[in-house]
């Protein structure tokens, strides 16, 4: 009996502990938010609660206030002289990123689930590609992108497909793919390439949260990237949020794609055009995580931000018929007029 009682008590204690664990992140989050707000006040930055819509408003109010408009860019003026910064040409996003993505640093990109890997890796590749073309403009150097992928990430999330890179507007011939057999080898290569100036950008893809890439491990990579002045992207496939030395961690998810425009300038409801990404600033200088939706145009090689509401109601293609198909464009998908069946075409004789 006594033993039974003890076991019961232990179980209760464990349960209460677990409950505390459950509560704790909330408390921490609150404290953290408070602190961040205080810091933001000291730094005289906008302290709006950032979910996307209210943030857009806050930017608007900023634009009314000429004073803010002038001071903000100045703040980053010094920065721009020292380090290369990738800007999105969107004031709200660039402000949230304190000017843009720092290119001489370790940046972590994370996909929560394996099925989001497509979006995360595409976004990372696009960033690396931006760096590549930036260097080409600035120094007239054709430098390659190095992509290091660990075996398990390749097996689970699929191989990077070169034609897929081309459809994003990236030339895969200027890239070097490293496929090490073990994580240990992958980290060795990562360390080697991170310090190279002859590389435009390095992407290291890992799956989950391997122990070698903790605070100390990522710090080594960050310092090397910093001294070389080249970006290092840590692409985490299906990983948890983890404290690392990365200055910026972005959570990447796919967002509904843009609609194709018909010749009549109307959107074609059941179509998939430019890919869109939902970027969450999980770790940055901001008081609260913010989220943006970016659309990538592979022809103009640029991002456009879009507010959430445009695409939040994807068209149900089974109910809606395309309103207008324009001249000379055949109906795809749920077309009523299927091609009539053909027999096998047999060569003559």
């Amino acid at each position, binding site marked *: 009996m006594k033993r039974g009682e003890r076991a019961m008590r232990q179980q209760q204690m464990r349960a209460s502990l677990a409950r505390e664990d459950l509560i704790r992140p909330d408390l921490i989050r609150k404290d953290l938010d408070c602190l961040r707000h205080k810091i933001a006040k000291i730094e005289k930055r906008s302290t709006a609660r950032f979910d996307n819509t209210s943030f857009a408003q806050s930017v608007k109010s900023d634009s009314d206030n000429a004073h803010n408009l002038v001071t903000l860019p100045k703040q980053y003026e010094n920065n721009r002289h020292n380090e290369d910064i990738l800007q999105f040409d969107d004031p709200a996003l660039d402000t949230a990123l304190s000017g843009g993505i720092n290119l001489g640093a370790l940046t972590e990109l994370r996909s929560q689930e394996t*099925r*989001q*890997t*497509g*979006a995360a*890796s*595409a976004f990372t*590749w696009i960033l690396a590609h931006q760096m590549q073309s930036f260097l080409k403009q600035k*120094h007239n150097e054709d*430098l*390659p992108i*190095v992509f290091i992928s660990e075996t398990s990430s390749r097996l689970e*999330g*699929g*191989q*990077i*497909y070169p*034609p*897929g890179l*081309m*459809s*994003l507007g990236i030339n*895969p*011939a200027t*890239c*070097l*793919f*490293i*496929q*090490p*057999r073990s994580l240990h*080898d992958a980290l*060795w*290569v990562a360390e*080697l*390439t991170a310090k*190279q*100036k*002859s590389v435009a950008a390095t992407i290291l893809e890992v799956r989950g949260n391997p122990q070698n890439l903790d605070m100390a491990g990522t710090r080594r990579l960050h310092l090397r990237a910093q001294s070389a002045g080249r970006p290092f992207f840590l692409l985490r496939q299906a990983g948890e949020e983890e404290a690392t030395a990365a200055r910026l961690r972005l959570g990447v*998810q*796919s967002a*509904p*794609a843009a609609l194709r425009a018909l010749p009549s300038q109307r959107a074609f409801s*059941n*179509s*998939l055009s430019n*890919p*869109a*990404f939902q970027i969450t600033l999980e770790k940055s200088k901001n008081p609260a995580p913010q989220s943006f939706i970016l659309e*990538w145009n592979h022809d103009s090689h640029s991002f456009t931000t879009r507010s959430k509401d445009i*695409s939040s109601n*994807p*068209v*149900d*293609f*089974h109910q809606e018929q395309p309103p207008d198909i324009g001249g000379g464009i055949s109906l*795809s*998908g*749920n077309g009523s007029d299927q091609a009539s069946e053909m027999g*096998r075409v047999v060569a003559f004789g």
Partner: protein
Amino acid sequence: MRLAALDTNAQAHKLREGQGVTEARAICPDLDIIASDDAADLAFLNALADWADRYTPLIGLDAPFGKPQGLFLDITGCAHLFGGEAEMLKDIVSRFDQMGIYAQGSIAPTPGLAWGLAREFNSQYALHDHKAESAIMNWDNFEARFRQFPMAALRLPLDMLLALDRVGLKKVKDILSAPRKPLMRRFGPLLLKRLDQALGQEEEPVSPRLPVSDLSLERRLAEPIGRQEDIETCIEQLSNALRSDLEKRGQAGQEFMLMLFRMDGVVRKIMIGLSAPSRDAKRIRALFSQKLAAIYDESDAGMGFETIRLSVLQAVIKPDVQDSFVDGRNVQTSMHQLADQITARLGEESVVKPVFHQSFIPERAASFMPVIQHVKHDDQIAQSQYYDRPIRLFSNPEPVTAIAEVPEGPPIRFQWRRSQYQVARAEGPERIGAEWWIDGESAQTRDYYRVEDKSGRRFWIFRQGLYERETHLSQGLLPKWFMHGLFA
């Protein structure tokens, strides 16, 4: 069981090759019999050939019918490096002796003569008596001795020797001036061929075991070395020396091989390939040091390496490019050097570049090829424009269960990796016909759809097989659905 080979002791007891083991035991009851193992013998002979590589790069195995018997060394132009033919032969045989191997050697103008002489003349004793000259034949003095050779010295099969013996042809002189026609008729072409080969009337080149390298340079060390740093220093000195030779030819090395000759006769070979040809000593050293770091173990050096050789296995013509001031400024190591460095450590299949092929089947349209090979065949197929291909492709399409409109509608709902997905939008189909010339005529057509689910994830899904035309409900064959890739 029969005797396949005999040592000198056994020969002294008048045992013969091909004798039954029982008979042999009757002659000599305390006989040691070891089962013959041709494969192991051949491996041993190969190791010896590696070792003998220090004398000449042209080494052929004498292993008729897979039965290893000896080594042919083509020492044309090499003997003076070792102080003349006599000294060289003495060096070879005495080194074998030190390794505990009984060897008989001879030097003669043709492989055939040398073969016969080595077997007839017991070099071991003669060398101890400083009579090495008698193991060496040249065109001036060969005739008299060759006439006295027994028939066995002509590399003939046993049954032919017996047949010759039966008609009283016991020595070479018996057939040397005999009419050729009857000999030919009676014993076939081999006898005269061997005779001509011995006399040099028919050419018999020594076919080298390994491809002979374009350029090779070696260093014999007075004191054997074993430390990795020492080996690397040596490599750098050698490649510096090779550089001038390569420059004279206007070439640069693409593949290099390092041979380390250990004191006890073991030879280690290390090969590296470069992603871009080079003759830069520092770079070659760096690559070998990567490779050595991965595989070298100092305890392996044993007593140390006495000779180090660096060869250029493959050289390509490379025009000289002048270094500019600008290049030196910010490029620490060029891309090729980086690729080489990684290749040397991780192996060539780990460092790859994409190649495009002329195929519409997605998994065949592109593949990855080691950078080293990529350089060699530079003729890439022109990249056609690809639209709407996924960024990630599963090399094995993963089966999904899908609900879709029959016959050609996109999926409405599907299950992949144990999760359900509701399709919000879809584009397609993109029909890709099977490549019957590879997959056979029964291969099925694929209809690819780009689908987006309710939360915006985009997938590339295909249906394999067309309704009615390629599948028959009556046979229970239905088109199958597969997940092939993830879009951005």
